[in-house]
């Protein structure tokens, strides 16, 4: 790990009057797999395009290996890029596609042959060199695109929703393939997706985008367990939201009055007594106990249970009508039939309170 391979500072981009990216700071360490995650139109692809040089930022600086790329056209940036629609050259064989970047760099022919063999072997398509792209399946085409984008060992690999056009099974398979290639070649990757599962599976760190800004950047675990904003909590994973008002505060834990009763959750500094908040708690953090037993928590009724294979999902209706989802793993104490009364509890530091009102 050297210094950061890519640094963005104060980068801004508008289309006409619409802000696509607003005041963006981002840094990618050498060898890191960083994912830009967000809904469509959140600015993640625009960011990628600016790094590639296919679009120009209106303001801010982009440094590649410490040097500004402001005046470098895309073909001099030494980056590799994989597009969602593969963008393989339809009139060239697989071999010629993969050889193309090497030919552009004036690599000697013998060296090209060796590197192309090597790259095709890496993506497990060693015998497909003489085929044309249209003779390959979507998954195979994307492997060729991957081989082509890294055969010249670029400083940085950009991937723009590379698996978006593939079906689920192939997508999961290729996610692991890309991770393997990333590991084996120790490439720095900037990856764009709107699929949170994909981001959680593949990334060292994730930057969550919304409306042209980064909401939070961190490891998958950090984003999942300690979402910084309500948007992150709702965008990544499933979350229960409960609205209420802070009535007490002690040691980073707030006591919150909701329509269904009093609850506890972690609250960050600006939150003070009297504030309107929304509490986010993951289904797997929500525990259920028979209502007769001792302890606090919200009272509710199990209205539905769904067997998921890896566990069981309970939907509980609280006193005020709000529904809360609880996910219990296989082997957890068996719960209560449907329509039974339960106590709903969680560890206070596993729930997070955010400013705001119910939507």
């Amino acid at each position, binding site marked *: 790990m050297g210094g950061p391979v890519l640094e963005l500072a104060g980068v801004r981009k508008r289309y006409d009057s619409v802000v696509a990216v607003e005041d963006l700071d981002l840094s990618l360490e050498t060898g890191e797999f960083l994912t830009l995650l967000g809904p469509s139109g959140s600015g993640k692809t625009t960011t990628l395009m600016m790094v590639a040089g296919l679009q120009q930022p209106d303001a801010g600086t982009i440094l590649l290996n410490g040097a500004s790329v402001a005046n470098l056209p895309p*073909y001099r940036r030494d980056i590799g890029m994989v*597009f969602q629609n593969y963008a393989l050259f339809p009139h060239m064989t697989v071999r010629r596609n993969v050889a*193309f970047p090497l030919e*552009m760099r004036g690599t000697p022919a013998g060296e090209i042959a060796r590197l192309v063999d090597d790259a095709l072997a890496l993506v497990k398509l060693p015998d497909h060199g003489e085929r044309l792209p249209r003779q390959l399946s979507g998954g195979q085409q994307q492997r060729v695109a991957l081989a082509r984008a890294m055969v010249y060992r670029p400083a940085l690999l950009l991937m723009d929703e590379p698996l978006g056009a593939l079906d689920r099974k192939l997508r999961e398979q290729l996610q692991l393939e890309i991770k393997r290639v990333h590991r084996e070649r120790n490439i720095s990757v900037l990856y764009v997706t709107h699929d949170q599962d994909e981001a959680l599976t593949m990334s060292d760190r994730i930057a969550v985008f919304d409306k042209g800004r980064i909401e939070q950047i961190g490891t998958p675990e950090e984003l999942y367990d300690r979402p910084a904003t309500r948007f992150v909590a709702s965008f990544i994973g499933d979350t229960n939201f409960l609205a209420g008002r802070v009535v007490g505060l002690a040691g980073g834990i707030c006591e919150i009055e909701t329509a269904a009763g009093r609850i506890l959750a972690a609250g960050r500094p600006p939150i003070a007594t009297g504030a309107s908040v929304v509490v986010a708690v993951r289904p797997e953090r929500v525990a259920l106990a028979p209502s007769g037993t001792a302890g606090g928590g919200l009272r509710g009724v199990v209205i539905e249970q769904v067997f998921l294979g890896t566990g069981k999902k309970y939907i509980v209706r609280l006193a005020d009508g709000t529904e809360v989802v609880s996910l219990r793993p296989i082997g957890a104490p068996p719960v209560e039939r449907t329509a039974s009364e339960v106590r709903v509890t969680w560890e206070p530091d596993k729930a997070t309170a955010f400013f705001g009102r119910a939507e």
Partner: protein
Amino acid sequence: MSADGMTPWRALRGALVIVVAVMLLAPLAVVVIISFSAAPFLQFPPPGFSLRWYDVLFSTPAWTHSLWVSVQLLVPSSILATLLGTAASYGLVRGRVPGARLITACLMLPIIVPGMITAAALFGIYRGLGLNGTLTGLIIGHTVLHIPYVVATVSSALRVQDVQLEHAAATLGAPPWAAFRHVTLPLIMPAVASSLLISMILSFDELIVSLFVSSARVRPVAVQMWSNLLGDFDPTIAAIASVCFLFALLVMAADLALRAGRSLKIA
């Protein structure tokens, strides 16, 4: 909507297609047949078969000279029109040229403005430049006339082609010229080749601008045919018309063969 109900309509449609085809092709057939006539004047049906009018055609200096002028005219003008039209299309479709629509409209003018006006305009400009009656003047005139066809064909091919391929080429290290040569051009080649062939046919056939700009010394086939028709004409005119027809037919066949070869290669 039964198959039985469709049959009369299908028959009618077939008949209509045949009638239209006959109306389009019959005059051509008559001309070709007359060109092989043994009669000393235009007469149909011809009294006998002979090649005498082809003999006259290829032994009369006025005709052979004009054929040679036409070749000297159509080769450079169609190549020039294709080069300039393709370059203009690429710039206008892919580049961020201010006023691209206006420029495109201007390039298309020669097929919108009546030919007579274009011809008169060229004649006026050439008078000052001393280009009237020169091969250079004809070549420039025909190039201007053919650019709209090239721009229309190549632009639509460029619009259909995925821009991401050019973006991919750029990220892979291809400077603009290399990306154009290795990626864009091979993919729009069918349209470019078609443009070239159509320009050649149009040039061989073009009369109005040629009439204004040519001279007795530099007289392409179409003008020679025109002046022949104005005087006493004989079946030689049918022979040269058949040659023109054959030329167009061969070029169209070449175009088809190119396309077929290409799709075979890709399939």
